[in-house]
């Protein structure tokens, strides 16, 4: 834009008297300079960088605090080469002893494509145990370490090998090295027992919702060494573990495995949510230097300059039976509390209140059980009070457990001055020892209610309660069906069974047949001669059968009658007339003229004469004459049948 103006400016600045006359309409030199400067200023103003610089004040970049926290964490080392190790712990064991096959890979667990089954290990029956991931600080980076544990109890002495196999890590194939195990019966006695965790549940015969204490013991060590545990987990299905109730501590324990001393115990509350036989096992990382350079030490040791080694240990599964809570006899106010509880006398924030003013009711519940998960009983629906749902104890679960008590706080509003005590709040719990529900309703507390400034409309309250949604009835597992009920040959629907579409052809065939029949009937109605001829042919065949029979029987009268009958029925369609009404002349009229006077005509006349004679007089003495005419008669009948 400026260059466009420059020639104009240059021309304008040419000295006067140079003979050049500026063209009309162009600005004078000072004004052109001003224009050039103005355009340059606008260009600078529109440039993005310049605009930013000319902004009133730069805004500071606000970083998301969570993002800032994440960015401040050390990075995870995923660049180092993957160097897996595979060892047996211990590498030498006695027959029947618990041995752990442990594979450790310095990679993130999510990046490892671990096979569901290990390659063939021969006589070793490896059972999958715990697996977990640990991030350990290594300089400025987090070093990932993933461990997979398998367990075996070899029964026979010998030398066992788990061959090397390939696993995909970060998309590349990595070889897990070979691991060897020596099982001998003559191992020295001073070798310590294999390290593994011990899980105890107290008690083991429990009900759904009953909190039990789960204790994880670290493996014992000689002397006063206490092995700590990190990332303690209890695995299994059908229960939840309250991590907030964890109580790790060091305690003196009874001698175990010939060793006595202090033991690290991780205690936590476990609550089963499903009934049946459940199984749980514990896993944790132990901090020690038993494992270095792929070898297992005989005990905890401190190697100078060696970073702490974390070894994933696990316990044998613990099976425990969980019984379902009985549905029968479940009283009002049961909110899932299982244990032994005692409701202490409730406390009111004040013992004098006006109608419409709120008052706090504090209820303290002591006992043994799942206090942390104790749900306040629902507020009752009473006419004289409006009760709001209780507030849970805001204290930390560990404080609740330490106190052995929890508190609920209800807010009550009196609706009229007739009330002299707070309503009873139904509450009950299930006692696992007595195996029955116990009523522990929160008793009422005396209070003085004075009339309020504004009367409460009880009708509105009643209407609100009545219009409230009814309590949802939870479905339960039904009883068994007494009878099999509606049955079928197969679950496959009829549409997909091969015979059903074919069955649909049956009505189609029936309709088609009906249509054919109807067409035929119409044809016969339009062509009656066809029907007459068909009937004549049928009658002729019948007469010919009679003829044959009479001939065989040498019955001349019957032969003659059958012959005349045959000729009549064969000729009747030509007239049309009733066959019995025809005479010999009618038959001769059907024959060709040349045949009427010949042998054929004589045959016709002869038979008619014979039948007339039989009817009106006697037969001629020689009846065999007629029987001898059979061939000519058959020829005549063939001719007549051909004309039908």
């Amino acid at each position, binding site marked *: 834009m400026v260059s466009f103006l420059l020639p104009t400016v240059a021309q304008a600045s040419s000295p006067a008297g140079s003979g050049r006359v500026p063209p009309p309409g162009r600005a004078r030199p000072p004004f052109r300079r001003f224009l050039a400067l103005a355009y340059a200023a606008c260009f600078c103003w529109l440039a993005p960088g310049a605009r930013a610089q000319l902004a009133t004040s730069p805004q500071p970049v606000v970083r998301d605090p969570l993002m800032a926290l994440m960015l401040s964490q050390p990075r995870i080392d995923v660049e180092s080469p993957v160097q897996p190790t595979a060892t047996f712990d211990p590498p030498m064991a006695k027959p029947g002893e618990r041995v752990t096959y442990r594979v450790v890979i310095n990679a993130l667990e999510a990046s490892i494509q671990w096979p569901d089954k290990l390659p063939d290990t021969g006589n070793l029956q490896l059972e999958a145990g715990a697996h977990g991931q640990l991030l350990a600080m290594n300089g400025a980076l987090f070093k990932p370490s993933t461990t997979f544990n398998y367990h075996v109890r070899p029964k026979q002495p010998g030398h066992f090998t788990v061959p090397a196999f390939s696993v995909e890590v970060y998309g590349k194939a990595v070889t897990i090295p070979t691991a060897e195990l020596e099982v001998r019966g003559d191992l020295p006695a001073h070798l310590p027992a294999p390290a593994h965790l011990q899980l105890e549940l107290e008690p083991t015969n429990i009900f759904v919702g009953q909190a039990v204490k789960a204790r994880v013991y670290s493996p014992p060590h000689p002397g006063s060494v206490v092995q700590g545990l990190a990332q303690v987990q209890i695995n299994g299905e059908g229960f939840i573990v309250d991590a907030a109730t964890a109580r790790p501590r060091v305690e003196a324990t009874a001698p175990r495995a010939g060793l006595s001393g202090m033991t690290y115990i991780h205690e936590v509350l476990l609550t089963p949510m499903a009934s049946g036989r459940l199984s749980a096992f514990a896993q944790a990382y132990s901090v020690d230097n038993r494992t270095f350079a792929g070898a297992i030490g005989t005990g905890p040791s401190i190697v100078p300059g060696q970073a702490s080694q974390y070894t994933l240990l696990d316990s044998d599964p613990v099976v425990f039976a969980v019984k379902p809570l009985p549905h029968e006899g479940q009283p009002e106010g049961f909110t899932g509390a299982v244990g032994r509880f005692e409701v202490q006398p409730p406390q009111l924030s004040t013992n004098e209140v006006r109608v419409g003013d709120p008052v706090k009711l504090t209820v303290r519940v002591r006992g043994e059980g799942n206090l942390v998960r104790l749900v306040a009983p629902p507020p009752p629906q009473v006419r004289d009070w409006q009760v709001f749902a209780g507030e849970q104890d805001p204290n930390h679960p560990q404080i609740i457990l330490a106190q052995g008590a929890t508190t609920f706080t209800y807010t009550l509003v009196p609706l009229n001055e007739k009330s002299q005590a707070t309503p009873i709040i139904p509450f009950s719990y299930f006692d696992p020892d007595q195996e029955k529900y116990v009523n522990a309703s929160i008793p009422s507390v005396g209070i003085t209610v004075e009339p309020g400034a504004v009367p409460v409309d009880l009708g509105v309250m009643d209407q609100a309660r009545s219009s409230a949604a009814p309590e949802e009835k939870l479905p339960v*597992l039904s009883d068994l*069906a*007494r009878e*099999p*009920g*509606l*049955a079928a040959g197969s679950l496959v629907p009829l549409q997909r069974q091969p015979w059903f579409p074919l069955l649909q052809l049956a*009505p189609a065939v029936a309709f088609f047949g009906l249509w054919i029949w109807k067409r035929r009937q119409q044809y016969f109605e339009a062509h009656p001669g066809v029907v007459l001829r068909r009937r004549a042919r049928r009658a002729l065949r019948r007469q010919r059968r009679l003829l044959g029979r009479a001939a065989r029987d040498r019955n001349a009268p019957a032969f003659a009658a059958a012959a005349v009958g045959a000729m009549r029925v064969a000729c009747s369609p030509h007239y049309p007339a009733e066959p019995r009404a025809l005479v010999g002349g009618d038959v001769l009229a059907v024959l060709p003229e040349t045949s009427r006077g010949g042998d054929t005509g004589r045959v016709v006349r002869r038979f008619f004469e014979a039948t007339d004679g039989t009817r009106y007089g006697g037969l001629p003495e020689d009846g065999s004459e007629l029987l001898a005419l059979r061939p000519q008669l058959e020829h005549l009948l063939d001719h007549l049948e051909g004309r039908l």
Partner: protein
Amino acid sequence: MIGIFPRGFGPRPGWRFRARGSLPLGLLLALVFSSSSLPGFCASSWRDLFQQGRSAYLGGDYTNAAALFRRSAAARPASGTLQNLGNAEWQIQRPGLAVLAWEQACWLNPFNQAARNNLDFARREAQLESPELAWYEVVSTWLPVNWWAWITGVSFWAALGLAALPAFLGLRKTGWQQGAAAFVLGVFLLSVPAHFGVTSRARLGFVLERNTPLRLTPTDDAQYLARLQSGEPARFERRHGKFVLVRTSRAEGWIEKTQLGLICPRD
């Protein structure tokens, strides 16, 4: 022996036969032999299994009860048998098989309220979702599946017959015939969506095993897209080797054939 003894020779007005012996032995043997394949004769066996399963269940032997109910259902699928099978499977903590059995019970008899309640119960307890049904599939759940096939077939041919037979027989069409034909045609048209619903609902299945991996490709080392819960609904799309392509509410992927139980088993 049955013998045919025509009198004389040649064509006769009719045939005559007479049998030797009081009752044809061969016919008797045929009746006895075929009676073993008659449904009435086998009814005692699958009913016996049903009753044995009930006894085992009431005695607390849920595993044996499940096996007996399964055998009874295999011999003759019945709504009550499948309901009990589901109960037994639920007791031995196999929710996938339990949900499948109850769904099959409702497949045969939608009026089985106990099976419906059990499905609600199981889905609430195990936090499972119900299968999403299209409107025509919902219609198909109103009646037993086989009823729709008969309703569609009978109504179609009845409508055709009522409309065409008077013309075939040369009769005058009356008002009631036409009205009946229209009504039956309406029944047919209303049953057609349910007919399609039955066909599409037959592809519905449920995951049988816990944490079933949903694979990206039909291979053993395929990447896992998700983990499916036992009892989760999935629609069968197609098969490839030992894998089947299924569509769930979350994703579409491959699982092993043995990990999916279809309401309507396929060959």
